[in-house]
């Protein structure tokens, strides 16, 4: 098929416009991700490395710190993401109701945490949950036990989960609010006239209609949580005794805190890549349209 001169000129312009971005993506994403695959086949520390084949993968399964980091990350993911998405949905539905007063005020307040830097809010949480700090004062005021929030493995995990939930619930809520505005009000009108109770409206209308957005937010939350770093680094530093250590933090430690073992660090990073891929596929599969 003969191309017109105009067509060729457009082609040239198109490539020229796209090229800077593609070149940068090539240098700073494609090349490193492939190189990291190659690195994961190398063993050794610092600059003295040798080809080790799948030795690093074997090392993973025998590495208690890796297994701890993996299970911590999965615990954060499995508990935090569903809680946050449920809360965000509930707030969004409440704020979408035109009868609710002060909607703008509530929306702004609940969204506000999403404006903060992760490091800044982490430090705020660390100071609130310090020993004998504000959180302890409040809990003991209501007759609760005196908890060493950041000193006990269980409670340290709880603080991390509370912190992430605080930061991201409003962010997810905004996505649901936008999607709710696109649902035709007459559906709810019809449901109301037919006497469908509010709870059934929520589960039978709202959730199915929002399924694509819920899927989208679940996947971005999953990717985010699998890479959790800033919060644990600044609230607990992975402690106490690795109870909040995450995969990203372990990669960071392997590369930049100890004598660097790039090959093994790259292998751990590929665990995150595989987890992102597998979990995304599972989430798509769960959310698929069933006939």
């Amino acid at each position: 098929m003969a191309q017109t001169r105009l067509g060729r000129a457009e082609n040239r312009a198109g490539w020229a416009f796209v090229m800077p971005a593609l070149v940068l993506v090539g240098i700073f994403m494609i090349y490193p991700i492939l190189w990291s695959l190659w690195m994961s086949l190398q063993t050794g520390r610092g600059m003295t490395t040798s080809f080790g084949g799948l030795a690093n993968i074997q090392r993973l399964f025998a590495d208690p710190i890796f297994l701890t980091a993996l299970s911590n990350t999965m615990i954060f993911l499995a508990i935090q993401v569903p809680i946050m998405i449920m809360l965000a949905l509930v707030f969004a539905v409440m704020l979408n109701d035109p009868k609710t007063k002060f909607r703008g005020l509530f929306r702004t307040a609940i969204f506000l945490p999403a404006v903060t830097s992760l490091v800044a809010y982490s430090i705020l949480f660390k100071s609130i949950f310090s020993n004998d700090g504000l959180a302890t004062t409040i809990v003991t005021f209501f007759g609760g036990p005196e908890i060493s929030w950041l000193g006990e493995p269980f409670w340290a995990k709880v603080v991390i989960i509370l912190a992430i939930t605080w930061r991201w619930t409003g962010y997810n809520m905004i996505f649901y609010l936008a999607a709710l505005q696109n649902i035709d009000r007459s559906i709810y009108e019809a449901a109301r006239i037919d006497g469908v109770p509010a709870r059934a409206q929520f589960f039978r209308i709202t959730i199915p209609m929002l399924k694509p957005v819920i899927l989208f937010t679940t996947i971005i939350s999953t990717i985010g949580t699998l890479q959790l770093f800033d919060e644990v680094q600044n609230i607990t530093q992975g402690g106490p005794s690795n109870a909040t250590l995450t995969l990203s933090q372990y990669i960071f430690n392997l590369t930049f805190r100890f004598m660097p073992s790039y090959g093994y660090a790259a292998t751990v990073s590929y665990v995150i890549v595989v987890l992102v891929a597998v979990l995304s596929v599972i989430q798509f599969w769960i959310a698929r349209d069933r006939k």
Partner: protein
Amino acid sequence: MSDVAAHRLDPEAAEPSARAALRGPDGPGRDMIGPAVKYIVLSLAAFVSVFPFFWMLVGTTNSSYDIVRGKAWFGDQLLVNLGNLIEQVDLPRVLFNSFYIAIISTVATLLVSSLAGYAFEIFRHKWRERIFAALLLMLSIPFAALMVPLFVMMASAGLINTYSAIILPTIANIFIIFYFRQATKAFPHELRDAAKIDGLKEWQIFLRVYMPVMRSTYAAATIIVFTLTWNNYLWPLIVLQTNDMKTMVLTISSLNSAYTPDFGVIMVATVITTLPTLIIFFLLQRLFVQGMLGSVK
């Protein structure tokens, strides 16, 4: 949807519907309990969301000892904390680093990524959708998987502890490319056709027609990228190694990781770190949210 339809045809559903009609939409059950619970839940959520901001402000006026002991009201240590901060941190230098990195990154990202997003929507090519799909797939590559090779690359290029090392990897932002492609769907093609008839070249059309028309998209993208780079932590933590190169975020993090952190000083620094994004949010709330939602439309 089908559930609702089924419900309507279900003869048993007619009975509660009749009751609902008798009671009317403002029946007692709904009006008394529902709204009360709703307002309690929303007020609690709003309070919990805003409280740490209040805590941060209160903290700037208290000593570190009072902060970690949970004092939640204003004290008189603000000037002491501010003085200590200025003594410990070269504030103008650190602020310059943060602003410099965020502004250069934002300008470069917007230019490169909007060019690509525009071209992906306007120009047709047999590989267009395939390349674009490949880019979208790369959105899910976690940064954790890139940081080790990126660090080695930067080290061998001699770029450790430089602004370039921070800025370069952020410029081709796939999310922003995607955002601009979506936004370009609303860009009127007649404008481009008219400009071509007037003899404008492709790059002139982009600069003189597209950019001015799309300014609210640019504004929203500016907010996203500025916030993102201003708040960036992990990559600068790896690459920036001396105090004179550190950003605000890195500075509060290293103050925080001291053996006995001075939370009074940290709170003042945290307020300074949070202020720019907070100001942008309150001034441009609509654009801020629009930018965030750009990807779902």
